[in-house]
């Protein structure tokens, strides 16, 4: 099929960017979206033009490195990562808009590449259980009810791609933050640091300049792993509980 892509091109963080259109013929519906961009990049290279910079690594939907806003939707029309989106989701003659994640906390590095270092700093602010190597008790000493384990797992599947921020009208990273709070907060191992964790992570979330959650749910709708919105409610509950107890 034939398509036109309009791609955000921006030379560097301080440069003005703009949308640039490219026509593509012979696009196979079995191609992944990123393979379509690979093909375009090969052509641009041969034409002596700089190829479009975009991030991707595992290309199997788990590393969280890829992420494009496609036709105004984070990761495009299907609920999956950009790398798992295939051209069969589009049709002949489509004009496809491709933009980077937009958030002042995710500055554009070049073209479609953004800096998501803020996520690492949120994790560093408390998104862990302090279990120094060698200090662990025998694994089966601590049974975890299956329901809790399953729910924790569900929250733990977050891949840190940042689609929640890109989709949120407020540029909030609450879903990302809450997924980790929920994962660790549901496990018995996570209890001792539950209060300090939520305080540290929320403070860092705010310090990074992310917006606030207005409970709209676009994040969870865009999330390729379907992290549920109730994680945010759990985060709120944990933080308010900590404040009520005078812990912050």
């Amino acid at each position, binding site marked *: 099929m034939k398509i036109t892509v309009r791609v*955000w091109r921006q030379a560097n963080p301080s440069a003005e960017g703009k949308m640039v259109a490219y026509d593509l013929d012979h696009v196979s519906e079995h191609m992944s979206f990123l393979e379509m961009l690979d093909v375009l990049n090969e052509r641009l290279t041969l034409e002596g033009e700089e190829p479009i910079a975009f991030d991707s690594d595992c290309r199997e939907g788990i590393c969280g490195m890829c992420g494009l806003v496609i036709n105004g939707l984070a990761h495009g029309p299907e609920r999956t990562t950009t790398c798992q989106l295939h051209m069969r989701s589009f049709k002949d003659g489509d004009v496809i808009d491709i*933009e980077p994640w937009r*958030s002042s906390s995710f500055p554009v590095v070049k073209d479609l590449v953004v800096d998501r270092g803020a996520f690492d700093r949120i994790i560093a602010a408390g998104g862990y259980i302090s279990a120094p190597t060698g200090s662990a008790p025998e694994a089966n000493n601590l049974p975890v009810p299956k329901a809790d384990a399953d729910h924790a797992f569900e929250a733990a599947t977050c891949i840190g791609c940042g689609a929640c921020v890109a*989709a949120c009208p407020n540029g909030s990273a609450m879903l990302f933050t809450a997924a980790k709070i929920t994962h660790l907060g549901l496990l018995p191992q996570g209890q001792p640091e539950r209060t300090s964790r939520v305080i540290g992570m929320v403070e860092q979330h705010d310090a990074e300049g992310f917006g606030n959650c*207005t409970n709209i749910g676009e994040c969870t709708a865009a999330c390729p792993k379907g992290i549920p919105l109730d994680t945010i*409610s759990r985060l709120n509950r944990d933080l308010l509980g900590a404040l009520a107890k005078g812990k912050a």
Partner: protein
Amino acid sequence: MTKQRVGARRSTVALKALMAVSGLLMVGYLLLHMYGNLKVFSGQVKFDEYSHHLRTLGEPILPYEGALWIIRVVLLAAIIAHVYSAVVLTIRDRKATRVGSGPRYKSKQNKRGFQRTYASFTLRWGGVIIFLFIIFHLLNLTTNDIAPGGASPSPYVRVMNTFSEWYMVLAYTLALLAVGFHLRHGVWAAGMTLGANTSVKARRNLNVLAYAVAGIITLGFLVPPFAIFFGWVG
């Protein structure tokens, strides 16, 4: 960790909780207010008596209009808190999403995202409209500075006069629809913010509650104006 952190007490989550609590206070007030409004069906004597009773409530422990002033102060505080948190958070959200010039995303497709409800879209401007309406409403029925159809010392007559004008019925209807939308999303959001959505079931219940509160308040407030306009009262 180079970025300056503010304390969790001043975090977005705490501000949202302030917004949720102040909003729920106002919802509580609206339910009482709506109940009082329905007294209009009991006739002028009952209605004016009820209105007067609000001023003598709590006497003699409280002075005349004491209870009313307490309610007014609490409501005013709630409104200030609600508006304050809304303004602070909105400015913050704008900063978080304004990158470069023009709209955040240049694509003109899917402007409503994956699933955004109309209610969530209209929350902020709806809130502004409601705020302006409250001022209008106070000038109209409390101070009676705006008195279409004629001023009166009797609250009952004020109400009757106001809603005998079609444009006033229309104005109140529009305002109450805005309130309805605001509550549809606001009640749900308050539940989320205060940590009530922790399961699929809780989520469903919260949504039902939000619809119910929004529906009851909107309809409950609209019944008297329409009844009056069509001459079913008095």
